[in-house]
């Protein structure tokens, strides 16, 4: 394996969208650049592997977007999903910058998918990568390597030498040997700590043992911890993570998009005691899917079951594992290992409470329950048509919010005041500046690209001056 150089202009830690945008931008500005990715080549890119699109403001429809998405609308959406947990100045700055990203990212070889007439609800706001996130990564790596960026895989950073807010060198472990790399500037785009169960436990306690991690096992937050320990100012709730309910049969790590389930609104959700615990029809699924991870995490043993009947089977996107199926409610309870009597009572109680109207899953319809706690406010239909189905679900962790505070130059801020001399951050590790809470599809990639490019440019400028 290739040994790292002793010294470069810009050292980029991480290997996803933000890291590669930084590396490309720095290299285009003349700096020598080394990218160190902790994961093996196949797993390079962290959560970028599993992304599909990015959200950029644009004033007119394009080849890939069905209509305009103004800066103002983007800001409104961000304000809504974060409930105000955002640095307005930085967020608005990012939104302005995002406009250029559509062209810039395409210039780096990334290709977008033509908007498919109406098949995707995000066709107006979000640009879809042709072939998905890994295709996007492949394009960025190809461009970076053609420009002369050096990339090392299986090369985790195990130590940072930071003196008074100034980066001097990093220790990289490769094949059991440690190498020290000095650099004039550092860009950290090494993601969050969602794959670090021990760290998650600090916020969640023992239930975190039952969490499934949607991305690779390499998102451990080790570099984030080193930075915070070296006096970099933290931002974002250290205990929070983006959690959705995913199929409980998914692998512990890296199940990605295909273990998601979009059927909560079509049925009821019960815990292991066969009790319902939340309004399944509170709002449209895209607005509610992100609360269900947290809801399931609060249930005994962090498991729940989405139960529905034959009427709903084909109303949602298929997922990886087939639903568990039975001819009667009792049979389903047995297959799921639920207390039979309690399950029968929950289903019959729900069925009796349904006030059926005209079902329409595209609007907040008038099918609801009456006199039931918790209620189901929309799309409530009796579960009465065999066969009956269920998906077991557990919390699936997508990303964490804790990160490093940055300014508009993507420069890390120090806890004791002032900015770091030569350290920059981009991507998930600083997403908490803009996205302190919630999520909007494709915004992680916007944060990564916009601040990655800025971090790379500023780092190269710093190395030059």
């Amino acid at each position, binding site marked *: 394996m290739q040994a790292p150089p002793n010294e470069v202009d810009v050292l980029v830690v991480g290997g996803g969208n933000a890291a590669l945008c930084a590396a490309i931008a720095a290299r285009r500005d003349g700096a020598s650049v080394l990218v160190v990715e902790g994961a093996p080549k196949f797993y390079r890119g962290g959560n970028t592997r599993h992304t599909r699109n990015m959200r950029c403001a644009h004033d007119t429809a394009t080849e890939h977007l069905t209509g305009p998405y103004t800066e103002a609308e983007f800001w409104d959406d961000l304000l809504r999903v974060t409930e105000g947990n955002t640095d307005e100045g930085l967020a608005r700055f990012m939104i302005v910058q995002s406009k250029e990203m559509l062209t810039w990212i395409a210039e780096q070889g990334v290709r977008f998918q033509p908007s498919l007439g109406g098949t995707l609800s995000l066709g107006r706001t979000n640009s879809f990568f042709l072939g998905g*996130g890994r295709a996007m990564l492949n394009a960025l790596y190809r461009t970076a390597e053609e420009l002369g960026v050096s990339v090392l895989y299986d090369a985790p950073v195990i130590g940072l030498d930071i003196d008074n807010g100034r980066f001097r060198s990093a220790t990289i472990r490769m094949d059991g040997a440690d190498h020290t790399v000095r650099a004039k500037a550092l860009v950290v785009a090494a993601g969050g700590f969602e794959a670090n169960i021990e760290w998650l436990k600090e916020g969640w306690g023992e239930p975190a043992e039952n969490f499934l991690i949607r991305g690779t096992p390499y998102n451990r937050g080790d570099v984030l911890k080193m930075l915070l320990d070296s006096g970099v100012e933290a931002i974002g709730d250290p205990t929070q993570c983006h959690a959705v309910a995913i199929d409980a049969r998914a692998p512990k790590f890296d199940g990605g998009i295909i273990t998601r389930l*979009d059927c909560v609104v079509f049925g009821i959700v019960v815990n292991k005691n066969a009790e319902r615990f939340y309004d399944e029809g509170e709002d449209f699924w895209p607005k509610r899917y992100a609360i269900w991870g947290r809801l399931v995490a609060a249930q005994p043993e962090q498991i729940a079951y989405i139960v529905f009947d034959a009427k709903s089977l084909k109303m949602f996107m298929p997922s990886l594992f087939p639903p568990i199926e039975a001819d009667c409610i009792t049979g389903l309870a047995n297959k799921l290992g639920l207390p039979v009597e309690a399950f029968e009572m929950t289903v019959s109680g729900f069925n009796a409470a349904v006030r059926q109207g005209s079902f329409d899953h595209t609007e907040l319809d008038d099918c609801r329950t009456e006199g039931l706690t918790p209620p189901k406010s929309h799309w409530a239909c009796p579960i009465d048509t065999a066969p009956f189905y269920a998906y077991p679900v557990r919390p699936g962790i997508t990303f964490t919010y804790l990160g490093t505070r940055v300014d508009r130059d993507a420069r890390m801020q120090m806890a004791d005041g002032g900015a770091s001399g030569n350290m920059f951050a981009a991507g998930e590790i600083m997403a908490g500046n803009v996205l302190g809470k919630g999520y909007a599809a494709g915004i992680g990639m916007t944060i990564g690209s916009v601040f990655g490019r800025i971090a790379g440019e500023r780092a190269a400028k710093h190395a030059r001056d």
Partner: protein
Amino acid sequence: MHATDHLKEAERLMTVCNSCRYCEGLCAVFPAMEMRRSFADGDLSYLANLCHNCGACHVDCQFAPPHEFDVNVPKTLAQVRADSYRAYAWPKAFQPLFDRNGLAISIIASLSIAGFILGFVVWHDPLVLTSGSGQFYRLMPHTVMAGLFGAVALYALLALAMGFRNFWTAIGANSVSAGSGTTLWQATKDAAGLRYLDGGGVGCYNEDEKPTDNRRLYHHLTFYGFLLCFAATTTGTVYHYVLDWPAPYGWTDLPKLFGIPGGIGLVVGPLGLLRAKLKREPEMVDRAKFGMDTAFLAMMFMTGLTGLALMVLRETPAMGIMLAIHLGVVFALFLTMPYGKFVHGFYRFGALALYAAERKAERSAKPGIPAS
């Protein structure tokens, strides 16, 4: 239940892919998959023949090996595709020719060449074989040649048509208007341009994640080379019978104008395709079908090479033996057409026609996809 392990694996993959759909913009396979929730053997044969093996979905897949989901669409569909050639071949008795196809085609080609050499010797003075007269029809009367090749071509056509009919029925193309003029025209355009052999727009993936592959170019050389050679033979036959103008023809006559570039295409194209095949990322390759694939390329190459050689050596004593080899190769090519990789063109065309029909029929909205 599925008939083979390959079909079983293909169904597993289509279930994975149908819950991801990131590749839907790359080619026709994934949009066709999205129109289905379950995958019967016929559906999988359809999708397998719709796949042009560009490899883009493999390098783009976050679940490819070493990921535990072990998604390898190009390889699995290549296996199902090759199996489908055997499963639909007519008559059934000849289906085992696909089992060791490389060997079968080599033997048939060798016997065919030997047969022509022997025939020339038996029916003529062995000296005629090396006389250097430049006169083909002294070795084999034109009527005999035309009769023999006409008969084998008719047989090949019949067997290909019957096999295609089996495939067409199995993929369910009968039940939709896949045979209508507009869909056939769409399929013709898609096939003629190899629309889906472009890795989604940048070129195919062959050796690694860089889209550097030129298989589309080499395939065009092979395919259009073949068509030009076919046109050369056809015009020659018309000249002979209709215009009473027997060979040899001059450099500016149609048989030569078609035949020379055609022959060059048939030499260069298969070489390029073979080179790409040898350099292909092993993970995507179905090793078991290497014989079938290379036998087909070799037959195309030999047809082109012996045709050109015959033209060059026509006035030399090598002409006789060269003619026997060329006729032997072409005879074997026709005879084995329904029982080798040649059928891929027909099945892919059929799959493209069904896809065109399905796209036309697709009007209903799909469930929305929250992007998380």
